[in-house]
């Protein structure tokens, strides 16, 4: 079972705790949402999993092994991919080169051509603009490329940090429908989002984070319950 399990995670920036006592898990074929106001510790959680910031306490296990304290490239190569906030594409490199960088996380290069073609099927713009610098793409196209780049790494768990930020509504629809397709392929998804209602409706369960702590967990049934959603944010 290649699932991601976090137990009692604590991350601090210079003595101030950004995340406290957080526990969650992501199993294959499951979408787990993480919502909450700005500064709640959502991105910090993803960064801690990815090894970009060090955890002060707690366990981060992936496929049965502890990955806490490993370098980001080792975690990527173990099978966790992050689509970072703001996409972080290489603007001067072409779309194709950006995509090929996603292959860096794969220990072996067999089957990569098929996977590149597969991702191009999922996101036609990737193929259409393959020779253009990534920097000239629109925001929505860049987001698609960023997700495509993460997918060619063939991760077991895909983490996304606010993928819908600043995108046009039609592109947001595309991102959310892509996530459903990804779930059907058996990947585990950990989704940090500002669009609370859509996230709750999509995810198998959604944790609400505030001040670095997990406040409550919502299921898709709660998506229609606006009062509960608002209460979750104001608690």
């Amino acid at each position, binding site marked *: 079972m290649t699932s991601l399990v976090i137990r009692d995670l604590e991350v601090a920036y210079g003595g101030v705790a950004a995340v406290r006592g957080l526990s969650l898990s992501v199993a294959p074929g499951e979408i787990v949402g993480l919502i909450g106001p700005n500064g709640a510790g959502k991105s910090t959680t993803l960064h801690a999993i990815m090894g970009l910031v060090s955890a002060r306490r707690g366990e981060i296990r992936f496929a049965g092994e502890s990955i806490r304290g490993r370098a980001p*490239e080792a975690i990527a190569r173990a099978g966790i991919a992050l689509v970072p906030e*703001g996409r972080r594409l290489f*603007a001067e*490199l072409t779309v194709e080169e950006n995509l090929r*960088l996603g292959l860096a996380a794969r220990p072996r290069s067999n089957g990569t051509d098929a996977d590149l073609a597969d991702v191009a099927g999922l996101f036609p713009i990737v193929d259409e603009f393959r020779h253009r610098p*990534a920097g000239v793409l629109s925001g929505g196209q860049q987001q698609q490329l960023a997700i495509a780049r993460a997918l060619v790494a063939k991760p077991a768990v895909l983490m996304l940090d606010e993928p819908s930020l600043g995108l046009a509504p039609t592109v947001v629809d595309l991102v959310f429908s892509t996530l459903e397709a990804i779930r059907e392929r058996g990947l585990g998804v950990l989704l940090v989002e500002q669009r609370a209602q859509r996230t709750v409706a999509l995810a198998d369960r959604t944790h609400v984070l505030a001040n670095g702590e997990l406040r409550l967990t919502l299921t898709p049934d709660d998506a229609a319950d606006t009062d509960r959603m608002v209460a979750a944010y104001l608690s």
Partner: protein
Amino acid sequence: MTDLLASGLTDFVGDAVDLQVQVDAIGLGAIFALMAVGIGLVFGVMRLVNFAYGQLIMAGAFAIAFASERDWPVWAGIALCFAVVLALSLAMERVVFRPLRTQSAAVMLVATFAVAFLLQSIALLWFGPLGKTATSLVDLNRPVSVGGVDIRKITIVAIVTAAVCLLLLVLLLNRTSIGLHMRAAAMDFSTARLLGVRANLVSMVAVLIAGALAAIVAVMLTVQYPTVTPTYALQETILVLAGVVVGGMTRLLAATLGGFFIGYMSGLLGGALPSSQSQYLPSFLFGLVILVLLVRPDGLFTRHRGLVERV
């Protein structure tokens, strides 16, 4: 007085356009360009200005002198030069660069100063202030006549070698996955690592390529300057560093052009200045550097940052 000045100026300009001076200057520019690539590549990937780069060349030159004094065959001397420079490069990367990678640029620069002086002192202890002589390749200083112009063989060797090295490097950077990883690391190291690019591997490859270039430069410099002392290649390194800054530190092509430019100017001024005034050459060059930096602080060969770079 004015006549004297005018005739001096005419001589100067006349010497500068002299074909032989031009070819020699291009040859020197080619060697400087290779040094600039070595410094620029490591800076690009690791954001580290390796001031000890000149001492790598010095060590390589001593290796050639060592072999030459023992009458080893030429290939053995060159092989020893590569072995010494590559081993030193690897050691530098493991012992100094890697542990300090997360430190600020200033800390790393000061550390490379320390390495530079350490290597220089070791050379002083081992070989003394007068150094050694590398004579195995001096035959390459003989001229060949090309279209009525006498050109030293080493100049041709330098130009061809530099062109081949640059071509190979461009192919490596643009056609291989390690090259792609190095370019990505140079643009945004933390995102590259996030994607699985191995920080240690790309740093090591960059340092090894820079080391190989230093070895090549050591071979070619000993042909022209066979007396190897502990301060060997020091002034060239400072000039190349200036050239790299003038060209534009953050872009490899710009840095390379900067290195070529300062080597070329150095050759041109060296050929055109009367020999009684050649000690003023570095002053001229650094004056030029200051002027360029005042006018174009981002570098001579960089474009202004456009929209494309801001994602």
